[in-house]
């Protein structure tokens, strides 16, 4: 277990390379059946070279990364901002850094800044997560 002090970083975790199976499984689970995520012809007609992954799948992977380290029962806030589209074959790395420890509603909380990047370092999703801590 990492000591949660400002500046501390969680161990990184990689996801992918992203496959069509990852994408369609998330689409089925989430109910977002937008064809731009699984139909290459449709995506090309919208100006993309191929179907693009689902932003909320990237957010979901970041959520899994956070709950793995901070627990499944303690999330209080989870914010994600979408910067770049992801294609099949991309490998993504999640990272997180402790921003602050604070008290809210009489419980101790940690705020993390979270990022998901491609292998070339480009930012896919960033955001903040707050979890209750003991």
């Amino acid at each position, binding site marked *: 277990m990492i000591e949660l002090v400002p500046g501390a970083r969680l161990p990184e975790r990689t*996801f992918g390379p992203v496959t069509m199976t*990852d994408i369609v*499984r*998330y689409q*089925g*689970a*989430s*109910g*977002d059946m937008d064809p731009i995520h699984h139909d290459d012809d449709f995506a090309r007609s*919208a100006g993309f070279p191929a179907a693009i992954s689902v*932003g*909320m*799948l990237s*957010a*979901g*992977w970041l*959520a*899994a990364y*956070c*709950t*793995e380290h901070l627990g*499944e*029962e303690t*999330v*209080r*806030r*989870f*914010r*994600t*901002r*979408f910067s770049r589209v992801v294609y099949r074959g991309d490998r993504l790395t999640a990272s997180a850094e402790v921003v602050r420890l604070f008290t809210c509603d009489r419980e101790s909380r940690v705020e993390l800044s979270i990022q998901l990047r491609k292998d070339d370092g480009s930012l896919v999703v960033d*955001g903040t*997560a707050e979890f209750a801590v003991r």
Partner: protein
Amino acid sequence: MATMPIERGKIREYATATAAACPVYLDDPKAPVPPTFLATVVFWTPIGETVRAPEVLRACADAGVEADLGSLLSLEQEYVYHGPLPRAGETLQIAERLRDIQVKRTRDGHAMVVIRFAVSFQDERGGLRAECLYTSAYVQRERP
């Protein structure tokens, strides 16, 4: 007002689809929701009614931006939880509201109408348990 039952099987499916297949999500009959699970609310009610509200359409017309749902960009999503996390077996009441509308410019000079709206989730006793705060935008297609 629409309702959303939190289902155990749906939590298993969602956790597996997001590489979060751990015992808490897979084996607990009263599993807590994963942080972004409430995105599955779309199985119970359409989300995004407010992006077609008259004041949004008016702002788009004034800014010269086509309010085309196909070109609506999702910029940000935030989940805020209040009190105990929603768990499998609970039923939540859903309501959506428009928060604000702002007209901005993209880096390459296109007008952009940014819409912030919220979906709230209340339990059977009326307690607010979670909110999803969306930031979405309609972007002008051609340079003015």
